[in-house]
């Protein structure tokens, strides 16, 4: 059956077709890892367990308290910065591809966009958000 017959049902079917190898590759990666893990399960040594062996490693001592504790806010700040800056990068990609269409206009547009981005970057730097040495 021709996939285009499904057009009313799957309007994106023909455009998505080029992603088939990506999907196949993801499945192959999954299968490769899973097969090796099954082989390891079948071939691997299975010694009897004991509480010391199943303990999380903490330099040979019994672990003190749970490891899921509060973390420095710096890490979360980096995550927020990532969302800010990476979204900008995502916006710049289609712009880069379409740049040939109207160079002068798009160049000025992009300068304004990067100018706003620069203000945000300047604010973040002045706030010391990436200054990890400071306590």
């Amino acid at each position, binding site marked *: 059956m*021709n*996939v*285009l017959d499904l057009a009313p049902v799957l309007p994106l079917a*023909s*455009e998505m*077709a*080029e992603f*088939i*190898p*990506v999907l*196949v*590759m*993801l499945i*192959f*990666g*999954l299968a490769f*890892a*899973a097969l*090796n*893990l099954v*082989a*390891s399960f079948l*071939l*691997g*040594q299975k*010694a009897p367990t004991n509480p010391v*062996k*199943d*303990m*999380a*490693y*903490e330099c040979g001592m019994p*672990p003190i308290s*749970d*490891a*899921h504790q509060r*973390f420095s806010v710096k*890490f979360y700040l*980096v*995550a927020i*910065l990532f969302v800010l*800056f*990476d979204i900008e*990068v995502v916006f*710049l*990609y289609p712009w*880069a*591809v379409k*740049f*040939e269409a109207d*160079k002068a206009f798009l*160049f000025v547009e*992009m*300068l304004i966009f*990067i100018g706003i981005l620069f203000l945000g*970057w300047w604010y973040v*730097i002045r706030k010391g958000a*990436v*200054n*990890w040495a400071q306590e």
Partner: protein
Amino acid sequence: MQAWLDSLIAGSELLQQVPAGLIYTIGILGACTLVLLFASLLAGEVVWLERRVAGRMQARIGPNRVGPQGLLQFLADGLKLLGKEDIIPATADKAVFLMAPVIVFMGAFAAYCVMPFGYGLVPADMNLGLFLILSITSIEVVGVIMAGWASNSKWSILGAMREVAQMVSYEIPLGIAALSVAILAGTLNLTDITLQQGGGIWNWYVFRGPFGFIGFFAFFIAALASLKRAPFDLPEAESELVAGFHTEYTGFRFAIFFLAEYAGMILFAMLTSVLFLGGWYTGIPGIELDGAGSRWIGFGVLFAKTSFLLFVMIWVRWSLPRFRIDRVMYLCYKVLLPISVLCVVGAAAQVWLGITLAGGTLAAPGEGGFADWLAGGRP
């Protein structure tokens, strides 16, 4: 890929009897199997290369017993790890702990399917190529934080937190530095980007003006950091964090993390060659390497460039001391980010003012990808 299969079909009486769909299906499955085998075997060989180079740099020999010059060492190691016990800590979150290495592995390997290994030798020749690589490799971050969190060990969680902060930060300069090539090329299709670098060595994007040159170094440094290679290997700093996020992993689960790490190295070395160093082109005008047979020589040329960059990565690792975490963040946000943004603006100005050198002369193979095939028959 599709164009190559079409030329195979056109050249053979026998293949013309077979339905095209079947050939394409076998083609996709075969290509994906080849790519997976290539990546995983080469990852094993890069582990060997790393150990040999490290040995040489530290005035010792390194592994040289299994196979010629120790080339089969990775098979011996893999077999040994298969026979090891898979220990899950009692306090771990089991489901997440078991899933994490598989997700890291998938993220590292799926990105290979848009990589142009030679003229037309690409499993998925899509216009989103570069973007897809950058997005699929960031799946790895999810697997890493799953591993660190689920292990419920303090070393793992510290390593995972550092790693995520670092990988996520360096993705920004990485993406922007790659963007400077995308502007010069006017496309994200990796085959088209390579085709524009045909002819002389001066057509490679690293030599097309100052911004490609700076962008190359910014990209390579950011790639090193997002691959957590030394000097940015804080997430698994052996001297302070035991082994970072994979402290609790044993046996083949650990091997899968290891394979994924080296597969990522090869991927980024190859991507750097394709973006900046002319992909499969030799840099000598007149040698195009796009024929039915010579495209495999082109693959050899790309492989040589990739090997050289891999050697540089290993060389850097065994020569430089480790960064401090605040220095890593400083380098990312205050040095690489402004430099790479400057590269993008400069490259855009270059295109606007028309001072780029002429691109390649060849047409892209199989522009419609597999859409044409699914839309009905052979184009």
